[in-house]
């Protein structure tokens, strides 16, 4: 078993999680690194009660909560997530802007479930809310997302 290999399996999703929450590549890279640093220390306490993915995202969620408590940097949330795919740049930016316009709780629910594919019950345990509360939050977040995206 190579811890680095285990981490690399989830590197893409952990980075995506922070990128979609912060909207900033530098910020996302920093936060993803911090998550894996903490996972190094916490690895010995991992008993296999959850999947590695769920365990890592639990750490990532706590890193994100701490980040939210700090004052935003000047580039925090800036539109630095451009993607260079011909023809769809404007649609892509609109998608990002819509996601960014959501409140952090709503954004995180959508990122976990609709972007990263967590089941609502898994996402609920990650962010420490009941499955029902997550479903309600998700339902409302999706409605707001749709409403703003269609404007």
């Amino acid at each position, binding site marked *: *078993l*190579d*811890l*680095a290999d*285990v*981490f*690399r399996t989830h*590197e*893409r*999703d*952990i*980075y*995506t999680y922070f*990128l*979609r929450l912060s909207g900033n*590549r530098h910020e996302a*890279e920093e936060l*993803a*690194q*911090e*998550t*894996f*640093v903490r*996972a*190094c*220390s916490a*690895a*010995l*306490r*991992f*008993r*296999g009660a959850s999947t*590695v993915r769920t365990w890592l995202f639990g750490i990532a969620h706590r890193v994100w909560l701490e980040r939210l408590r700090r004052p935003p940097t000047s580039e925090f949330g800036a539109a630095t997530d451009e993607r260079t795919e011909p023809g769809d740049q404007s649609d892509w930016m609109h*998608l990002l802007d819509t*996601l960014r316009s959501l409140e952090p709780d709503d954004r995180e629910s*959508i*990122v976990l479930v*609709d*972007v*990263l*594919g967590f089941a609502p019950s898994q996402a609920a345990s990650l962010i420490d809310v009941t499955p029902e509360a997550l*479903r*309600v939050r998700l*339902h409302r977040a*999706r*409605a707001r*997302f*749709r409403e703003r995206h269609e404007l």
Partner: protein
Amino acid sequence: MSHDNELDLSQMREDEPPDVVDAAFGRFRKRLVLGGLILTLLVGSVAFMTGRSQSDEETLEDMVGQDHGAFHLIAQQLVGGEEWKVYAFLDQDGRPCMIETLGGGSCHAHAGDIKGEIADYGTSGTSWSNDDGSGAEYVVVSGAVPPEIDSVLIEFDDGTVERVATEQPPGFDDRVFALLSEGSIERIVVDVRAVR
């Protein structure tokens, strides 16, 4: 709850993330080194103030004692679905005083035919290039020891010995230690003299 408003935003998953894992290991190593330096300074200060110093000639055996008593398998830990077996010596009072060389990619300990009972104490290592640890760029070693154990000694292949303090996180029954270092580890030893 109706599912009529489900979204599919899977296209927002990032295709080419930067390499954050290697950078994270580098950062982890720096933190451990810094923590070790602080600990060394603290220990050195206390030794200076009390007029005590540790003999440079002291061997590992001198430090932990020669009588290791019965062998016991003390750990079996699941890490990421892989099984890690770690063996340890217990002294005659039943306290673990030596943990044998950790296993490598094949996840086994180099403990020969040691037999014993499974307990709750665990140690894990990773990033070995070979079973014997040779060729590894770095190694992460972490483990849990009984709450009485203040520190563990880690002996490297080149004979150098590093003492790593244990800590007891809130809510945990055991104390834990962690080390990320370059090179190969010969063995991990719980210093019975460091028992609280």
